[in-house]
Every structure is written in C-alpha cells, then in structure tokens.
C-alpha cells in the first residue's frame, strides 16, 4: 500500500489540504463550536511541516509517532490530544515498519479509534470525528475482506466517512463543545468528522 516515501507524500497532501480547508473547517466549528477547528489543525500540521526534515531515515512507525507528538504539542483544544493520540497509537502499531499494507492500515484505523474513544470517553453517535472514523473503518475492512481490492476498499471508506458526516447533521452532540447547544446542534455537520474525512481522502487519492 505505501512505503515511507508514500507515507510522507500523503502527509504532505494532508498538510496542504488542511491548510486549504482551514477556513471551511473553522466556519463549521463557528456554527456549533468555538470556531477554531481549522485554525487548530492548520497550526498543528504547519508545525508537522517544520519537522519533516527529521523524517530522513526513519521508519513509518517513528514518523507517525513524531507527527502525533507534534500535533499534541501544537494543536491544542479537543482535537489536538485526540488526533495526536491517533497518530501516536498508529506509530506504535507500525513501529519498525518501512512498508505498510491494507491490513496495517485497517488496524491503524482501529487503534486510532480505540485511542480516541478512550481519551475522549466518547462512543459512536455523539456527533464527533468517531462518526466518520468508525463507519470508514468498518467499510474498508468489509470491502477489503470481500475483494482484497485496496482502491475499492478506500473508496468505500471515503463514501462511508461522507455518509458519517451527513449522519452527524441528524444527531444532537453529546460530547465536545457542540453538546452545549443541545437541540440547536442538529442540522449542522461535525467539524472533526469533516477533518477526518479530508485526511482519509488524501490516503485514498495517493495510496
């Protein structure tokens, strides 16, 4: 699926996409949160950009771990520890590897979800990034299991994540800042679910 070079390429695309979508993500967060999700992530991924020089000679696990630590120490807010945990757990999983395959990726999504659920004490259906992550993982795993077709599986994953975003519009937030709005959060999509989907799309496009 991806070697070290490919992983860095994907990371580069995520950095660029987050930057491009910064205002959009912030605008989403403005409606049901505090209007900083795009700003937070952009600050974090801009910082990741600055450490890319240190990736030289590192394996995928070490790179993902370094990214996770950088995100934790620069993003702030709720999404910082959550995405940071996801990358750090993924790094631990892929420790020593210089190549990863689809099974690695599926497992990586799983440990990310587990890490986020544990840290954020959230489950599916609370209008968070998990509502894109969990369906995406499940769709990718099911599709890949059935067809062993990475391209097809990732497409199914992106589709499931996008459906997850749509789903977040229909539910009340019970975690994160949007939960303070109660019923008023209905009708609006979750910024974190949106930013996760953006990252998954980068994987789909380049992997």
């Amino acid at each position, binding site marked *: 699926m991806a070697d070290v070079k490919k992983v860095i390429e994907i990371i580069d695309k995520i950095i660029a996409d987050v930057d491009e979508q910064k205002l959009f993500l912030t605008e989403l967060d403005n409606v049901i949160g505090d209007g900083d999700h795009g700003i937070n992530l952009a600050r974090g991924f801009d910082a990741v950009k600055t450490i890319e020089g240190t990736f030289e000679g590192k394996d995928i696990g070490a790179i993902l771990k370094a990214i996770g630590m950088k995100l934790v120490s*620069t993003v702030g807010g709720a999404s910082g520890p959550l995405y940071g945990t996801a990358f750090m757990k993924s790094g631990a999983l892929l420790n020593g590897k210089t190549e990863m395959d689809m099974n690695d990726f599926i497992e990586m999504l799983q440990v990310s979800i587990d890490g986020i659920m544990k840290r*954020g004490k959230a489950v599916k259906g609370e209008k968070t990034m998990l509502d894109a992550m969990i369906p995406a993982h499940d769709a990718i795993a099911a599709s890949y299991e059935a067809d062993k077709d990475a391209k097809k599986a990732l497409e199914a994953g992106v589709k499931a994540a996008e459906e997850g975003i749509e789903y977040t519009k229909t539910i009340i937030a019970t975690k994160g800042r949007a939960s303070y709005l109660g019923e008023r959060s209905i009708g609006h999509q979750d910024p974190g679910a949106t930013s996760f989907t953006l990252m998954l799309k980068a994987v789909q496009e380049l992997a």
Partner: protein
Amino acid sequence: MKKIINAVDQVENQMIEGMVKAFPQYVKKLDCGNVVVRAQKKTGKVALISGGGSGHEPAHGGFVGKGMLDAAVAGAVFTSPTPDQIYEGIKAVDDGKGVLMVVKNYTGDVLNFEMAAEMAADMDGIDVKEVVVNDDVAVQDSLYTTGRRGVAGTVFVHKIAGALAERGASLDEVQAVAQKVIDNVRTMGMAIKPCTVPAAGEPGFELADNEMEIGIGIHGEPGVEKKPLETADEIVDTLLEKILADIDYAGSEVAVMINGCGSTPLMELFIVNNHVADVLAEKGIKVYKTMVGEYMTSLEMEGFSITLLRLDDQMKELLDDEADTPALTVTK
C-alpha cells in the same frame, strides 16, 4: 475586526510578555511557552496550576501569586493549552507536596490537562490531582454529555483552594476544598455584543441592535437563547432564577461575583449588582462578600455573568485569607 494589536499570530505571546513585564514582582514566564509561574517559587506547599485558552484575561495569569495559583498555562485564544506546556508548568511548581490542577470543564482543557498529568506522573513521579469546574447553569448537566461548562466560578476555586494550599494543607485537603467550592458555585451569563477571535477575524455570532444572548459561555460561542434586549433588572431576574433553581441557597451566606465579559463598563456592572443585591436580600440570602469587575473575560465581548458561591465557615475564612496577585489582592 478592529483591535489594538500588532499581528493576529502574536497576540498570545505579546500579551504574556506584556503581563510579565508589568508584574515582575509577581510572575515570570517559563521558556517553554506561555506558562507563567510565581516570580519566587513558594516551597513547602501543594502547588496549584490552572489555565486554558487565552482571551480570558486576567484569568489565569493574573491570579498567580500569594494565596492563589502557582502557575497558569495559556493556550492560543480560546484554545486549550497543550500537554507539553502544562507538563512544564507542573514540573516547575511541584515541591514534592503534589500539584492540584484546576481545570474548567471543556473537553479540550480536560484532555490536555489529563495528558499532562499522566506525563508528570509517569516520567517524574509527581503526585497530580485534578478538579474540574462546571459552574455554568446555562447548560444542562447530564451523565451522558460533557456536562456544564466551567466559567467565572473558577476564580473562587483559585482563591479558596489557593488559600488552603498557602496555609500548608495536604494535596487531598486542597483538592477536597476545591471540590467543595465547585459543588457550591453556580454561574450564568449573557451578552449584548459578541467578540472576535483575532485569527478568525469574524465575530462568533451576530446580534441585532435590540438583541441579546442569554446563557453564553466564555469562548465567544452563542448562548442558549437569543432574545430581545431587556432592562438590566429583568436580565438579572432571568439569570438569578436559573442559578437559584439549581442550588438551594435559602438561608445561606453567599459570595457574589458580577463578572464583566471584557468590554462592559463598570457602571453597568454596578447597576447589575444593585438589583442582584436587592433580589438576594429579598430572598433572605445573605451576601458575605461581593466582587464586581473583570475576572474571567471573553476578549471584547460585552455582557456579564453572575456567580453565587454558597459559603460555609471554612470557605469564608479562606476567602478572607491574604492574597497578593496582579488581578486580586486581599489584605487582612
């Protein structure tokens, strides 16, 4: 966006630098980011650390000093600080008697402070405990949600737990009294003008000339209800009703805080207090102490919050203990 600043990505740094340059007798800044600690480390006591996003000035750096906090960590505007910063703060102030983190109930704050506590415990064996302030009655509390937000009542936690720590109490005792304050403090706020996060450039919500937001938080987010603007007395009635419905204050003594959100003239806060005092007197709730001013702001938001803390003898005594910080000084 019209602000007296230099650059949107410099506001946090320059704010902290400006604060430290104003009050070198009280605070100094750590090298690792926007973390301020007491200018002279006070040893032999439990250390108190608090913090959150910037934009709440004087919270929290303004409360670092004798009888209150030992360290305050400031994130980007309205964004929780990161664990590494908090971790450095914890290490800087610990003196072997443990550290109490006073965290406002926001997912981001809770997650980042907890990660920092894990780091300090795992890597340095520091005894770190936490209390989570959740005084905002505008938001329903529930087991299945994140619960109420932490807002201006946090300052009472700093003052009272800070006083007990200064007296030399143990970490458990300091945590217990902090939790007692949290259990007895409730706040509700409103705004007539939103605020603009510098990096965002646009206000967090819009209000027409005759509108107000009831139940706002402290991050520029909209409140729970948009209503036509009312008189000061009517607004006070609305806020007090919610607060008084949440805890039974009848027959008790309270500390009152009328907190300005950042651009509310003191004149208006006093007009607010005029009616708050009357309503409490009428209900037989005795006011032990009143604070009127800016303690927990939201940049240039215009509005106020009312905080009531139900007191017992221990809290009264600790409230009156000496404090000497940039933003709050109490003489004996």
